[in-house]
């Protein structure tokens, strides 16, 4: 945990009223930046991470020593080109990579806040990150971009701050978490709560850790990020380092072994309570409810240009749900482009090497950056 203290962060002193009614102040937001902010401060992009992401979107994550979660899309010469753009990515509140969350040490008790942490929403996350604009003295972002929960944050950001981004790119997301989405998140949460090491969220004080529950949560969720076709092609019924079935409950199949591995590496880098809080925030996300059933009203004052992207094999946030965002934007005459990218990599497509996606995103940003600048001159 000491390593976390060395991460870049800002302390938000101004009190922030949360959706649950509580107020927070003097809390940290950890962030990372990529590229250089130009003199006119017109090349800044705010990237929002997904459920288990963090501020390390590109390069090496100094805590996990793994590549950043969006290394395919973000970096020098990549679609989100850090030779051209200044990219800011912050850890969401509720997260566990330095921002204010359940693993933050309570100064009074000297122990992690645990489940005394307030239930937060996507709206709360976005309002907290908005402070970064002030910190960097950026008046208007060139773009806000994010996939999955990051896409929800894009929608909420543009709704809350209608004139603070020229371009908004929500990817593989939804304006309202579906029953299926909530169901899968609940499955994950129940796996954590069922682990006797969870101790009502105060596991560090009890020197335990609900690793098994968190690993099962990750395994279940991981399946939802892939497609049936992708899984079948990669694993099929291939056996794991054996010639025949063992008639036991060992990992006979490669897919079993793969999921177990995904679960086990996840618990090394992620906090179980953060998983509870962040999935809850996603479930509570319903932009249409915030505007009395009319999503269009969420964007009625927007000056942003939108580009909505979905993937053919994404069944977690399917094209139909992404299209609803497009329809709501068209209903108010907003400037919105939309494409469904062909890919059999499921919901994870936005994180992976999908050339059609990366090329279109890169060209879109490049061309529009030129146009936005020409307009200003």
């Amino acid at each position: 945990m000491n390593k976390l203290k060395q991460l870049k962060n800002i302390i938000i002193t101004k009190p922030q009223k949360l959706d649950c009614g509580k107020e927070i102040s003097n809390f940290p937001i950890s962030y990372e930046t990529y590229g250089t902010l130009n003199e006119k401060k017109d090349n800044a992009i705010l990237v929002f991470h997904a459920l288990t992401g963090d501020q390390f979107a590109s390069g090496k994550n100094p805590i996990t020593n793994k590549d950043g979660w969006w290394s395919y899309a973000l970096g020098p010469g990549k679609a989100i080109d850090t030779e051209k753009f200044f990219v800011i990515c912050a850890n969401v509140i509720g997260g566990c990579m330095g921002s204010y969350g359940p693993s933050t040490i309570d100064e009074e008790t000297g122990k992690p806040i645990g489940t005394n942490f307030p239930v937060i929403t996507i709206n709360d996350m976005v309002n907290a990150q908005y402070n970064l604009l002030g910190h960097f003295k950026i008046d208007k972002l060139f773009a806000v971009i994010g996939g999955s929960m990051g896409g929800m944050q894009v929608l909420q950001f543009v709704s809350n701050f209608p004139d603070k981004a020229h371009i908004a790119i929500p990817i593989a997301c939804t304006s309202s978490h579906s029953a299926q989405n909530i169901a899968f998140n609940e499955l994950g949460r129940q796996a954590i709560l069922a682990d006797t090491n969870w101790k009502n969220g105060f596991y560090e004080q009890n020197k335990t850790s609900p690793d098994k529950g968190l690993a099962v949560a990750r395994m279940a969720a991981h399946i939802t990020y892939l497609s049936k076709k992708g899984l079948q092609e990669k694993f099929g019924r291939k056996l794991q380092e054996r010639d025949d079935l063992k008639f036991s409950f060992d990992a006979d199949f490669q897919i079993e072994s793969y999921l177990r591995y995904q679960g086990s590496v996840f618990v090394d880098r992620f906090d179980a309570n953060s998983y509870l809080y962040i999935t809850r925030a996603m479930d509570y996300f319903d932009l249409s409810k915030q505007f009395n059933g009319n999503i269009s009203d969420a964007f009625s004052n927007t000056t942003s240009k939108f580009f909505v992207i979905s993937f053919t094999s994404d069944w977690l946030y399917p094209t139909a749900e992404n299209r609803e965002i497009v329809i709501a934007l068209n209903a108010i005459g907003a400037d919105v482009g939309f494409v469904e990218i062909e890919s059999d990599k499921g919901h994870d497509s936005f994180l992976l090497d999908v050339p059609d996606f990366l090329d279109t995103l890169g060209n879109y940003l490049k061309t529009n950056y030129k146009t936005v600048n020409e307009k200003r001159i």
Partner: protein
Amino acid sequence: MKKEFKVISELILQNSKVLDVGCGDGELMKFLKDNKTSKIRGLEISKNRVQNCLSKGLTVIEGNAENDLQQFPNNSFDFVILSQTLQAFLDPEKVISELLRVGKKAIVTIPNFGYWKVRLNLLIKGTMPVTENLPNEWYNTPNLHMCTLRDFFNFCSKREIKIFKSLALKNDKTLNLSSKNLAWRNLESQLGIFLIEK
């Protein structure tokens, strides 16, 4: 750029709101954006073409004109363009009524099945016509509802659609087109361009 696109762009007023239905690679959109109006949107069914358009900075939505026009409110555009695709729809009548609901005016262009070479093809050879403008065989053509310039005139009068302006293209030459010269134009021109209004 195709002569057809030049003629279409001359019909579009400066700074008007335009929707190009079936915008393809965005050639017409780009020209209109550079010369006429920045308020231009496209609808296109092919993923690759949508990606090309978005890459050029054009605002295009992937979708099918037969289902996806319904997301646009009434009169949300000054002009809606439909270039040479009316004949490919399952229900062209519905598409036309959608164009005129979404747009205050619509520009529809039609490959003329009354063109003399087409007629001759059927008359002499006794086979379904295959020409430069209609290059497919009967078994693989996307064109389900071919019509002639006269057919479209008749359709508009039956459905009480006003033809604001009509032009014909004969070997890239623009000709005026009206009910008076229809018999001849319907024989000599490959393409009809109609500016219509409900």
